[in-house]
């Protein structure tokens, strides 16, 4: 029983132990934190629903190496984002920058909430003009 349990544990928890980049990339804890945050926000371009932090693909390893190199050279996050966007497009960043092309990504949620609000307001206002009987006719909960 104990054996079975430990086997099951192995099966279910094994993946969470696999470290892609074992060891520190930087000695400075601030740089290391910045590095980890950065690679978590870069999309692995071959394995599209993973960031390069979690991906074991060739290209993800290469991009991590390039980011380490650029950080070592003292480049800012914006400069590193520029490097990626020039080569792979806005698609490479999980947090797209504010540009004309990405505007639609940023405003669509607000537009949806806005128009949804209008629709709800209209429905509510319409219902307020109805009597109780009419509301239950419309499919509201019968009393």
């Amino acid at each position, binding site marked *: 029983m104990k054996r079975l349990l430990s086997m099951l544990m192995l099966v279910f928890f094994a993946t969470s132990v696999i470290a892609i980049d074992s060891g520190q990339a930087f000695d400075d804890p601030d740089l290391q934190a910045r590095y980890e945050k950065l690679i978590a926000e870069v999309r692995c*371009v071959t394995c599209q629903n993973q960031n390069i932090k979690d991906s074991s693909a060739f*290209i993800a390893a290469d991009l991590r190496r390039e980011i380490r190199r650029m950080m070592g050279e003292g480049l800012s996050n914006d400069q590193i984002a520029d490097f990626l*966007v020039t080569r*792979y*497009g806005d698609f490479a960043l999980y947090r797209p920058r504010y540009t004309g092309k990405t505007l639609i990504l940023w405003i669509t949620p607000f537009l949806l909430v806005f128009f949804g609000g209008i629709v709800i307001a209209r429905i509510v206002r319409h219902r307020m003009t109805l009597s109780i009987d009419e509301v239950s006719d419309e499919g509201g909960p019968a009393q």
Partner: protein
Amino acid sequence: MNRYLLPLLAVIVMIPIMVLGLGSDPSNLPSQYIGKPAPDFNLPMLTDPSRTVSTADLKGQVSLVNIWATWCVGCRAEHGFLMDLANSDIIPIYAINWRDNRPDALKFLSQLGNPYTASGFDGDGRVGIDWGVYGAPETFLINSEGMVVYRFTGPLNRMLWEQEFIPRIAELTN
């Protein structure tokens, strides 16, 4: 009547958007270099490390740049077609041997034939990143000024060649 109008309108607006979404392949990313100069590179030649292949070699002619590796199954699949293409002498095929190791790559070419005018050796994949490569094989069409005209991702074959490349090349050489 009026209460169905708004949802109906919403559906009519959504359908074409969704159809477009279904039709496009999300794994096929556009190259960022279309209409721009091919990214600079200067690599040792695979077959002769004492010589180099660089962007300068691409100028003055319409050419292809093929990104390949021996570990890449698609590259093996398109190799026969690349050999045919090389033998027909239509267009020079330059190559970047991407993230590979030299002995394997040389063995691959000696066994299956070498379709390349020149292949650069990019063992650590740095030039691949500069070119925005996200998976081999990729084939870039370069015009005589050294600008990227088109990128094709995935294994090439005769049908795709005639469909995607022939018309573009005809336009460039006119």
